[in-house]
């Protein structure tokens, strides 16, 4: 039986990709960011998952305004790296796990989550930055990745509550898959940030710290945060934090907090990161 062993939440700031790809990770500004992931790299090497389910959002790379799926599950064998306007990132292509992905799709749709199945999709920094932060710069990614793209570009994204329940349904699906796989779920994006308009640059450290505390110990409280509260308190792009709740929903109610890191600024964004392990 497959099972979910842990969850990882992290921001996916594109400037991190630029810093890494252009060899600037040793500069003081970026070193502070990468230092926060040293323990995470050691942890994931030790845990060595067989599959990662990675919840992220596409940034007008694979999806334009022609089709806007709320939840899109990547069921392909391979996902090419998107050209976001300056050439694809120099990172390995992402290999999928079509068998488990197809099983998850079938299971959660019958569980009443009407997600979109995607068999061809380029993946952008939203997916590759979290992998780079956790694995550095390997020649191949160490394990297959199932992308779950969530619409947070056009308002409204799915509610935090819906995301949390989708996480639960994903867990149920994983646990009914008959291969012996250890799965880690990533929830990415956030934390507080606003990229547009005269209020750009908004950072709400108090909100972020409460969110980090609650994602570990009281996730049900986070499912009650309204969209307007996210927009007002965490900025127009801070609403990406709903994606962390898919990851959290897939874990046990009680989890072990393994590592936490919070840093301002990473370009325009408050960077947040937490690792949570199921106890059994």
């Amino acid at each position: 039986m497959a099972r979910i062993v842990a969850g990882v939440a992290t921001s996916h700031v594109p400037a991190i990709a630029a810093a890494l790809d252009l060899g600037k990770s040793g500069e003081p500004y970026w070193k502070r960011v990468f230092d926060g992931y040293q323990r995470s790299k050691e942890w994931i090497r030790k845990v060595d998952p067989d599959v990662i389910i990675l919840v992220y959002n596409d940034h007008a790379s694979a999806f334009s305004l022609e089709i806007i799926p709320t939840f899109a599950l990547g069921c392909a064998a391979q996902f090419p790296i998107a050209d976001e306007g300056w050439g694809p990132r120099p990172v390995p292509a992402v290999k999928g796990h079509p068998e488990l992905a197809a099983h998850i799709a079938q299971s959660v749709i019958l569980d009443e989550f009407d997600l979109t199945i995607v068999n061809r999709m380029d993946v952008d920094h939203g997916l590759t930055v979290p992998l780079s932060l956790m694995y550095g710069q390997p020649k191949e990614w160490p394990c297959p990745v199932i992308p779950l793209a969530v619409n947070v570009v056009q308002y409204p994204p799915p509610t935090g509550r819906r995301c949390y329940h989708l996480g639960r349904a994903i867990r149920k699906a994983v646990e009914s898959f008959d291969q012996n796989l250890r799965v880690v779920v990533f929830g990415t994006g956030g934390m507080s940030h606003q990229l547009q308009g005269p209020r750009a640059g908004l950072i709400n450290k108090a909100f972020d710290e409460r969110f980090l505390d609650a994602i570990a110990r009281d996730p049900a409280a986070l499912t009650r945060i309204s969209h307007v509260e996210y927009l007002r308190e965490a900025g127009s792009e801070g609403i990406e934090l709903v994606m962390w709740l898919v990851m959290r929903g897939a874990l046990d109610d009680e989890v072990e907090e393994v590592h936490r890191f919070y840093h301002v600024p990473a370009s325009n964004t408050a960077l947040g990161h937490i690792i949570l392990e199921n106890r059994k």
Partner: protein
Amino acid sequence: MGKPNEYDDIPGTTVFDAQRSRQGYHLNMFCMSLMKAENRAAFKANERAYLDRYPMTEEQKQAVLDRDWNRMISLGGNIYFLAKLFFTDGKSFQYVAAVMTGSTQEEYAQMMLNGGRPPEGNRYTAEWEKKQEWKKRG
């Protein structure tokens, strides 16, 4: 349009909802086209002629030519799509954020290093109106 939205009273913030997406469809799809190198070259060679390929409003075209980012957003532009345009110009998110907030890139970068723009005084439009009022009174 329906009744006002509960997010309309957040200052300096335009929520890219379904109505704005409809309004900005061609503006955003124009931006999306700039992900291809040959389109970037054609746009750079003659911006006006390239824009005329898209059924955008005259106002939207002018805002693009002027690189008036706040105006593009008010006309239905979305920041992730506009990014394709400012990447074509060789500009960064931080550069455009600085322009949209009316500060220099140095001032904006320093604000971020100092912890960013605090939520205090920046949650409701009424708080910004009060600030304007005080400014006027000196």
